[in-house]
Every structure is written in C-alpha cells, then in structure tokens.
C-alpha cells in the first residue's frame, strides 16, 4: 500500500463523526479539572482553536471548547536537531524518519452532564461536537425548542467540516433577563457594522411574537455606514447557503426611515444619503428651542455646569419659553419666546435693562449677570454650531414618537454634525425613547439603539458627561424598559467599564494585539488572542450568558448594500443652490409641485422666511403643499431700494504707470 491512500484512510477515519478524534490525558502538571482538560489528537485532526468537543466516559458527558494547542516532538534540546542535521538547515527537513510529535489541546469546559456532582473531566475519548452536541454544549436546548422558543440565530459554528447554527436567547439579548450587546474590533476588518446589520435582520425575522414588538434606532456616526439598509445586496452563493442554514431570508430591511439634519443653508440635507432615488424615506431632523432647552445640560455639562446655571435654565424653561412672559421692567410688551431668535431678543432686553440700571446692578431676578451671560453663550453656541439641526424659527421635524412600527428601523445620520450636536441628538433621542417606553406609548415594546464609536460617548477616562451618565443608566436599567443598547467601538478598554460590563452579549471581531494585551483580556488564552488578532472578515468571537466560554462563529454578509456599494450605486446628489433645494424639498412633499413655480415664488424672498415656510409645510404635510407654502410665505413685501451713494473719485496721478 502506498503512503498516500494510507494517509487518506487515516484522515477519513478521523473525520468520521462516530470515531473519536482524541483522548483526554492528565498528568500531575497538567491535570484534568472541573473547568479544564487536555487531550491529544492525531496530527491530521481537524481540531483547532475554538472547536467544540465532547468527552464521554463512565456515564459522564463533558463538552468543552478548545482554547489552546501545543505541538512538540521528542527533541530534548535544539542542539540535538543541529547535530542530527550536521549543522545544515537544508538537511534538517530531510531526515529519513520524522520525530514522534504530539498535538496536545487544552479545552475549557462548557457543560457537564450530569451537572452534579461537579467533577474533574474524565480521561475518556474525545469526539468532535455534532449539531446536537453544540446545542447541548451551549445550553441552547433550554431556549431553542418548544412553542415559546426564544432563540435568535447569530451565526454558524464551524469545525472539522461540521457546521451548526448558534442561537442567542432573546430574553438575554433584548431583556428582561439580561440585555445589550457590545461589539469590539479594529476598523475595516472587524465587520462590526456588518455584524449589527446581520443580527438586527435576524432579530427582526425571528424575534418571537409572544415576546412583543421590536424596532431599532441606529445612529450613523461616520460616512455612509448605515445609509443603505433598505437596499438589497447581491449575495454570493456561500452567503445564501449560510442564510438557509440559519433559517433566515437574505433580504434588506423593509421599513426603514432616515433622518438627517440640514446643512447650514437650512435646505440641503447634511447626509450622504441624498440621492434622488432614496429621497422617499429620508427626512430632515430639525429641532427648535424647546427641544434643545430640555437637554441644555448636555450643552452645559462639558466644563461649567453649576447649580446657578441650572436654576436659570429651569427658569427659562418653565417661565419664559413657549409662553407669554411679562416683565414691565424689561419692556412693556410681553415676550413670546419660541425660537433662538426670540430668546436672543429676550437676553438683549435683560442686558439693556441691567446696563440702564448702572453700576451695582449685577443681578436680575436673583440671577447674576455672569450666569445669564454663560447660559446665553452656551445656548447660542449650540444654535451656531448645530445650524441645520437647530432652527431659529422653533419649527421642528422629529422622529415619530408614539408611532413606532413593529420591525421598523430609524436611522439618524449624525455623521456630519459637530460632536456637541451629536451629543445633543443622542441624549435627546435616547431620553425620548426612555420616556415613551416608560409610559408604554412608543408603539413598540422593545427598541434596539445602535451606537458606533461608543468610546466617544462613554469614554473610560475624561469628564463625566451627561451622555456618559445616560449610557451608564441605559446599560444598567434599560433592560427593564425594553430599551436595549447595541454598541460598537474599536477598543473596548477605552469604554466606560459599567457600560460594556452590563452588555450581556459581547462580540469580538478582529482585534488589535495592543488592545488584547490590556488586563481586561487576561482571561482569554494566548491562542485565542492570536485567533482574534487574525480573524477573517465574517467571523466573530461571541460571549453570551448561556455560553460559559467564548465561541467562534461565522455569519453571512448582510443582505443590504454596504457603504461602498451604496455610494457607488446611489452617489450623493450635488449640493443645490438655495432655490433648487427648496424646490426639491417641495417636490418631495408633493410631486405635483412645479420646481419652476417654487423658484419663482421664492425669488427675492428672505431665506429665513422661506425656511420658516418650508418647515411649516413639512410639519403640516398639507394636501396642497404649494398652496400652504405660499400662504406661509405671505404677501411679498418689496424692500426699499436705496440708491448707492456716490463716492469721491480718486485722483489720477500722471506719474503712476499703472494708473489710468
């Protein structure tokens, strides 16, 4: 018999599911314990780091996951290899006999059956786990069967030619038992966004009806990452096969709503999703003074929040904004503050009054002038830095609070916003979600909030911002409300520990070795770290409350266009001149509207007036948008044309060779 068929036969024997692939060994230095064991295999064994194995001996079954591997020969010292090869490295590989060598693996125990008494792993034969073994090893038998199953497919565990679906328990992913998910990994290779897109799709397809309804709110914080969730991708055969194996349909999200702030001109969207073909479900996100004032703490807490500023903001919110405010000393006519412009007028009246009062008048209604100036600066700062998100006119366009649909996705594109404005958007949206979920009037029972770049919002170091406190609160108490945080970042160690620590499920994509050297990863074996550092796209390591050890899974690419494909297929529209942008937005509200008519209508009008009319039309969504818009604009008032004053002509100098 030649060598090749012999090796082939041996490999076939090893790969046969009924044949053991190894045997547990225990020595005094490497004993079997209730949590760890060692086993050897043939050299041709398909066992690798992350493989799940089964040990059977004497009525006890133990499942383990391979966490480390060793290979060594009977060579006692490298010097013997040098002697054997006569110092020639070329000869070293051509010895007539290969040294005896061992493949020794270390496995961490996933489960023992029976679970009591908990004993060291028996010295029995080792098999590669089958589909049924994987279910038992990961304790998925408790939540993937029966009428009220709660399993959510998350990927495929694959080893030795076997491939088994792995499920998360939605009670531990979306609450109430545990909740939240955190993904970490380097940019570009860790497939963080893809993993979230795939998992959200899986949740939407398999979240059991008896657990209620679910929606998602995603913050797009960079580029066009999440801008094409409603656009189908062309999948490879292998991806389609994996979807089928997981029992999922490879389809894009059906009910997606996009919100993006406007640019400073107040009419063009500050987003990369501006292609005309995608305009149908893309709306401006615009907030007024009231929306901002409720979250003024976000603006103030960076460096100078104090009780005095807080008190003055409360005064403004309760007594001034949105109602008539009388103060005879300031002016005879009552104030009606509804916009930043109105508020600025109000502040100016206060300062005029205090100036008029002269020296010694530094307090107005118990508020010191310095406090009033600070609050004014901060509030005007947000309206300046977030122009496009915050309007001066007080008209807002917001998420459909109270009208969330089951399995709907709401993407808020804040990629183009100033960090302060991003904080504001994040704080307000999450707070509103929380309020509505507390009152059970959001429209759905569970909301998944996806935030990328979590290290920006909840950094491990730095000031204790409003957003960070809110994220901590969300991660610690959100599960009781159905408010679930899916978060991602490059470096988990740079995120506040309480936020990531409260994530019941953790996913790791390809990791940076420097990050893996941090103490937080001390429980991961060196071999697993190497695997994490070289993980290919589409593979992840997974921690979940039911899994006593991390598990590696692969998942198909999401069935939606990724950012590069999306931008290529739907390039962003060029930024339009003011009149054209207004005409486009009007046509988006009512396709019957003629762009030329809109351009003619607004020609010569003040841009602020046009913006105000457009916001009102957008908010009202009347049947006849053009008529409503025209009414909002009001009668045209022609401004007085002042003839330019004639200047004094310059003197002509004869010696100036350039003159003339």
């Amino acid at each position: 018999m030649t060598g090749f068929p012999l090796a082939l036969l041996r490999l076939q024997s090893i790969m046969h599911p009924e044949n053991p692939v190894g045997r547990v060994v225990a020595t005094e230095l490497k004993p079997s314990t209730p949590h760890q064991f060692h086993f050897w295999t043939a050299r041709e064994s398909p066992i690798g780091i992350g493989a799940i194995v089964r040990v059977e001996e004497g009525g006890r079954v133990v499942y383990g996951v391979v966490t480390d591997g060793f290979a060594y020969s009977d060579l006692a010292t490298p010097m013997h290899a040098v002697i054997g090869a006569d110092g020639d490295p070329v000869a070293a590989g051509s010895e007539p006999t290969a040294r005896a060598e061992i493949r020794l693996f270390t496995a961490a125990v996933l489960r023992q059956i029976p679970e009591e008494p908990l004993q060291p792993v028996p010295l029995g034969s080792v098999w590669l786990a089958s589909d049924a073994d994987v279910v038992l090893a990961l304790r998925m038998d408790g939540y993937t069967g029966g009428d009220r199953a709660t399993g959510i497919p998350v990927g495929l565990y694959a080893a030795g030619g076997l491939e088994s679906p792995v499920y998360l328990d939605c009670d531990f992913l979306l609450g109430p038992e545990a909740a939240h998910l955190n993904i970490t990994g380097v940019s570009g290779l860790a497939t963080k966004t893809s993993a979230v897109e795939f998992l959200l799709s899986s949740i939407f397809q398999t979240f059991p009806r008896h657990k209620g309804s679910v929606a998602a709110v995603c913050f797009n914080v960079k580029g066009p990452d999440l801008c094409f969730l409603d656009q189908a991708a062309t999948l490879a055969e292998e991806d389609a096969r994996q979807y089928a194996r997981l029992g999922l349909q490879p389809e894009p999200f059906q009910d997606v709503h996009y919100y993006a702030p406007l640019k400073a001109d107040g009419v063009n969207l500050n987003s990369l999703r501006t292609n005309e073909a995608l305009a149908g479900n893309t709306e401006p996100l615009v907030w007024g003074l009231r929306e901002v004032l409720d979250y003024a703490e976000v603006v103030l807490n960076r460096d100078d929040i104090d009780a005095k500023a807080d008190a003055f903001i409360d005064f403004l919110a309760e007594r001034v904004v949105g109602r008539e405010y009388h103060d005879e000393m300031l002016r005879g006519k009552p104030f009606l503050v509804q916009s930043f412009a109105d508020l600025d007028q109000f502040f100016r009246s206060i300062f005029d009054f205090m100036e008029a009062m002269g020296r010694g008048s530094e307090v107005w209604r118990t508020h010191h002038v310095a406090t009033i100036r600070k609050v004014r600066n901060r509030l005007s700062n947000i309206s300046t830095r977030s122009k496009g998100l915050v309007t001066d006119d007080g008209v807002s366009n917001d998420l459909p609070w109270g009208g969330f649909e089951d399995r709907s996705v709401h993407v808020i594109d804040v990629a183009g916003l100033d960090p302060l404005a991003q904080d504001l958007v994040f704080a307000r949206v999450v707070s509103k979600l929380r309020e509505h979920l507390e009152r059970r009037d959001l429209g759905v029972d569970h909301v998944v909030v996806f935030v990328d770049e979590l290290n920006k919002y909840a950094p491990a170091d730095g000031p204790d911002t409003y957003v960070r406190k809110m994220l901590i609160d969300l991660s610690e108490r959100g599960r009781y409300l159905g408010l679930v945080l899916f978060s991602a970042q490059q470096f988990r160690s740079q995120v506040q520990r309480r936020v990531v620590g409260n994530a019941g499920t953790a996913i790791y994509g390809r990791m940076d070795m420097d990050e893996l050297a941090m103490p937080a990863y001390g429980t991961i074996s060196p071999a697993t770290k190497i695997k994490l550092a070289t993980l290919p796209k589409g593979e992840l390591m997974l921690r979940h409350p039911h899994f006593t050890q991390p598990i590696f899974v692969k998942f198909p690419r999401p069935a939606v266009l990724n950012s590069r494909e999306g931008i290529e297929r739907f390039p962003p529209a060029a930024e339009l001149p003011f009149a054209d942008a207004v005409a486009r937005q009007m046509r988006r509200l009512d396709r019957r509207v003629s762009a030329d008519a809109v351009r003619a209508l607004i020609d010569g009008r003040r841009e602020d007036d046009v913006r105000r009319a457009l916001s009102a039309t957008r908010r009202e969504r009347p049947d006849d948008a053009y008529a409503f818009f025209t009414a909002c604009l009001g009668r045209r008032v022609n401004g007085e044309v002042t003839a330019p004053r004639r200047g004094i002509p310059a003197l002509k100098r004869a010696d100036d060779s350039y003159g003339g």
Partner: protein
Amino acid sequence: MSAIGLMNLEVFRRAIKAKGLTPATLVPEASGGRVEEAAIRPAEVVEGESLRMIPVGPAEPWPGSLAYLDGIQKSQIIGYAGSAPLFVAEIAAAVRERHERRLRTVAEARRVIVLGRPDALTAAGTALATLETFALPADEPPHPLRDIVNAGHAVDQARGALEVVVGDRYRAGSEDWLVVDGTLAVSPRWAADGRMVAISKSHSILPFGGDDLGQYLRLPCGHRSSVYAPATRSLAPVRAWGLRLWPWEGKDLLHGLVRVEVAPANASTENADAISRWILADRAPVSAPDRRWDRLLYGMYSVEQYLKARA
C-alpha cells in the same frame, strides 16, 4: 497479557505473604537490559587479506520502506521463599514500520512471567497462578545474587525469543527491510534473510585483539571495517563489520561505533558499503536524550519508547 504495573505487583506480594513467603521490592541492577560479559572472540576477516578501514561514501536514504524491531524487559523481585528470590518480569517486542517518514507499530507482543527456583515457585503456589512461570536452575544451593544473575539471563533469553516471534510475524507479511537490535544469529531464518540487518550497540564481545583491535576501535567517522565472520555465531553464521556513525575523537573509542550484521549472502563489498551508507543516513534524527544516542538509531529508540509507554 496486558502490561502489569506496580499496583498489580502489590497484589502478588500480598498473595505470597499470605502463603508464608517474604515479600520484597528490590529492582536489581541491569534489570532493564541484557547482561553480557566482556571478552574478545577473534573473528575471521572475509573481505581482503587483513582488517582495513574503508570509507563508505556519503549517507544515502534507505531504499523503500523500512521497519525496526526491538524489545524491552523489566524485572523486579517480589519476594523470597526462604532465601530463594521470586522475580516478575515483563518482556515486550514490537516492529515499527516507516511510511512517509512516519513510524507506526505493525507488530507487537508482550509477556509477563514469574521466575524462581522450582521450590520457590511451588511454595508460591496459587498466589502466582495467573502468571506464566519460568524455573531457574537449581543445581546449586540458593544464593540470592546468583539467582538474580540467572534470572537476568533467563529474561534476556525470553526477550530474545519474543523478538524472534514478533520478527517472524512481521516477516510473514512483509518483505521490506527490517533492522533488528542486537544480532541476527538468534535465528537461522534471520541469519539467512537477505532483507534483515542487525545493529549492535554493545561491544562486550570484541572481534579482534592487538593492533587490529586498536585499528577497529579507531575507525574514523563514515568508515567501516572489513567484513568479518564473527566467531561466536555458532547457531547461524552471519557476517559483520564495524561502522563509525559519529566522530569519536575527543570523546571515547566506542563513541558512535556499531556492529552491523547481515546474512552471508549480503556481505559483498558493495552491499556492505551500501548498507553502511543507509545506516549513516539513519543517524538523523538523533535519538537523544537517550544516553546511547550515538549508537541508537531513532527508529529503534522509537520502538523502545513505544513499548515503554505501554508497559
């Protein structure tokens, strides 16, 4: 019979104690290997007129498949009947065959035997009934140390016999080259087998005296001696030569020196050179950390390790 361990021996010790014998736990010196006396048995040079040092040329891989046969032995005193010791010995032999540079076991046998004077074996009676017995010579009065020596020879013989059994079993199913540890002269079939080579690490019996011995012991690395006919191989005549595997200079005259035995029909100059070159190629990998690594081929070492691991 499967391998026996210390726990099993304790069972036998308790059993013989119950029979009124005296249990003991001595492991005699050299209980793990052959016992040989040092001597010179002048051999006849059959290649040329006188003993020469012959360069064999560069090492060459062994053609085709190759198998190694070796055996192990292990014995302990488990007690005394009066002043006569009782021994338990385990002997084992195996053939490991090389395919694609990898060794795997293709034939194996083990025996556990109890040795003692006939009276001592009778006194032990049913206590050792499950074991195969072997009577030591009783023509002289019991002397524990002499009995240890006799037992050692008996175990050697039993091991040699077992190696022959295993070797024959392998040879019945394969015509590949078979390298054995020691000598071919233990079996007439082996001594005539054109595909067998014996390699002896032991130089207790030297083939030359005087100047020839000096020359023999100073073979340079990669050289062999002239082929000779050993004088001690009465049962089955073989041909042999000395071969230096590793330089001895700076170490010892015996460092790296082996005796190679083949069937007489295989002993032409060309064959002796070729077989020597094949053996030289088999120096790598070295069998360290075994202290005999300079003379022990890795294949043999592998057989020993295999047998010891299962003992």
